[in-house]
């Protein structure tokens, strides 16, 4: 029989689960509207992109890499759809092509990191700004509508209340299964944990890395397109780095280590929910958005401090 304290030492997600439950309890006590249907829909829509980008970042953090361009890919993919629409490409095709281009951006990120040996932090930061600049130039910095998304297709792709939340959940589950259950996931963890050793054992570490960059770009693009179809318009000046940082924050407060080798998709999902609950709860109880950022920072610091302390204890107890 496991003691409760053991659960905290062994399961990296435990801290964030407690934080999440506490926040939900607090906000529903302060305002009963927290549990209303529309509010839950709002939270699901807010949480989905953070959870998906966060899940993608988990793959990269597991490799001891990071993708700073994921948020900008999230924003740029729907722009590809719009630009292609302006050239007469039907919506379905435009979405497909946009996903392919986004995947290629991921492959480009990965190739620069693997073959040119540029640190991923720098390589993806560069790609982030290239994409942001591209959107500004091609859109002439004019807010644009996301057109032609009606009927069943439009509903599935974002118009329906639950579309974005379900897409988000589905993509997170796919990443979870990939990381937990497949050879690819095991090789990702192995590459992050001991790259040279994994290579000596025959793991194709370079391919693994490039694929991880492709996957995060692809899922960010999917949820980005769904998100923009729901909202109905695109803002060319939206900062992609914010969305990416929210994803990384969700991953890190969920128990994923920045240094590789420890990754939890479930923790990331809960981390994203915490961020969603925080933002939404603050709105509901009427605290200004300015306070939200301050409190969010405090929550991140606390969650990280607890995780690191528990991590230290875990490593010590296990070694004995």
């Amino acid at each position: 029989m496991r003691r409760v304290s053991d659960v905290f030492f062994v399961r990296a997600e435990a801290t964030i689960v407690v934080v999440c439950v506490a926040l939900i309890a607090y906000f529903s006590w302060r305002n009963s509207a927290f549990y209303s249907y529309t509010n839950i829909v709002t939270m699901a829509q807010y949480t989905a992109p953070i959870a998906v980008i966060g899940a993608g970042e988990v793959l990269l953090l597991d490799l001891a890499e990071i993708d700073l361009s994921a948020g900008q890919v999230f924003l740029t993919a729907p722009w590809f759809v719009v630009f292609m629409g302006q050239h007469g490409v039907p919506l379905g095709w435009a979405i497909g092509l946009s996903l392919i281009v986004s995947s290629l951006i991921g492959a480009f990120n990965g190739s620069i990191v693997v073959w040119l040996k540029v640190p991923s932090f720098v390589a993806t930061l560069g790609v982030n700004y290239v994409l942001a600049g591209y959107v500004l130039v091609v859109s002439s910095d004019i807010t644009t509508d996301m057109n032609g998304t009606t009927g069943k297709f439009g509903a599935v792709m974002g118009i329906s209340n639950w579309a974005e939340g379900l897409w988000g959940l589905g993509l997170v589950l796919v990443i979870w299964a990939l990381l937990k259950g497949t050879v690819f996931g095991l090789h990702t963890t192995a590459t992050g944990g001991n790259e040279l050793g994994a290579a000596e054992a025959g793991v194709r570490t370079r391919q693994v890395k490039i694929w991880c960059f492709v996957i995060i770009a692809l899922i960010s693009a999917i949820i980005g397109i769904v998100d923009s179809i729901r909202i109905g318009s695109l803002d060319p000046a939206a900062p992609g780095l914010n969305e990416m940082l929210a994803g990384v924050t969700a991953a890190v407060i969920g128990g994923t280590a920045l240094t590789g080798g420890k990754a939890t998709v479930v923790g990331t999902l809960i981390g994203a929910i915490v961020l969603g609950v925080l933002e939404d709860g603050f709105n509901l109880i009427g605290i200004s958005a300015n306070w939200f950022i301050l409190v969010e920072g405090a929550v991140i610091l606390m969650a990280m401090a607890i995780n690191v302390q528990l991590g230290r204890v875990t490593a010590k107890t296990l070694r004995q």
Partner: protein
Amino acid sequence: MIGDDAMNDVQLDDTSTPGEGFARNEQARTSGVEDNARRASVESQDIILSTEGITKSFGALIVLRGIDIHLRRGEVLGLVGDNGSGKSTFVKILCGFHRQDAGKIFVDNQEVSFHSVKDARRTGIETVYQDLALVPALTVYQNLFLNREITRFGMLRWLSNRKMRQLARQYLDDINVQVSSVDALIESMSGGQRQAVALARATHQESKILLLDEPLAAMGAKESALVIDLVKDLSHNRGVSMLIIDHNYQHLFELCDRLNVLQEGRITLDLRVEDTTMEDVTALMVADYRRRIKLGQEELRV
């Protein structure tokens, strides 16, 4: 190497039967021809790995000047030499990491040519590197099956964790390796246990020949005993042939059936462990060193 006086002078005859000891070798020394003839007879079914005249230079630096070794089936051969004697280079040639300038490698009496580590692995040569190539954040069974996972659902390559756990447990039991659980993380294990897991990984797939790079480096007595027992078990009960490099004589005397001494890019001594003592080896090496200084082949170094 054959006909090389500098070598035959101190070469001990590896084919001598136990108990003949140095007296036999004195005799061999006087008759180089006889020695060569006996040497040829060794080339039988019994030899799993042998090399002929392996040389290697890096630019102007000559590292290996013609290495001849042979490894019998199930034998543990130690390759000893000081730092810079070329033993790591030699092992890296055997495992396909470097390519020799000249000379031949035979596995099962078939000449082989390695262009990569994978080539060597395909012919049954596994290497346990000093860094062990284990992933600390993964479990024992995940490391045992790394890159040889058992999967289901075809293209999905879904991991059959239960099967791998079961096989891992079974194999570790077979070779008497004790771990708290196959689900234990490598990072929670001691150096000896890690080495044992690395050895288990290298041997649980059909490897015929195992190259070990300082398997007892930085290990306490208890840890060493664990690894020594495992090496002996693998060679006696599983027929795994091993080549171990180390510069610690004491380790090699405990682990090996036979020792080859590598000095200045050549094998200068070949002796059975049971026929000799550590003092003898040291004395012979010093004698050889002095002789070469006398001949002007060696500059006096401090």
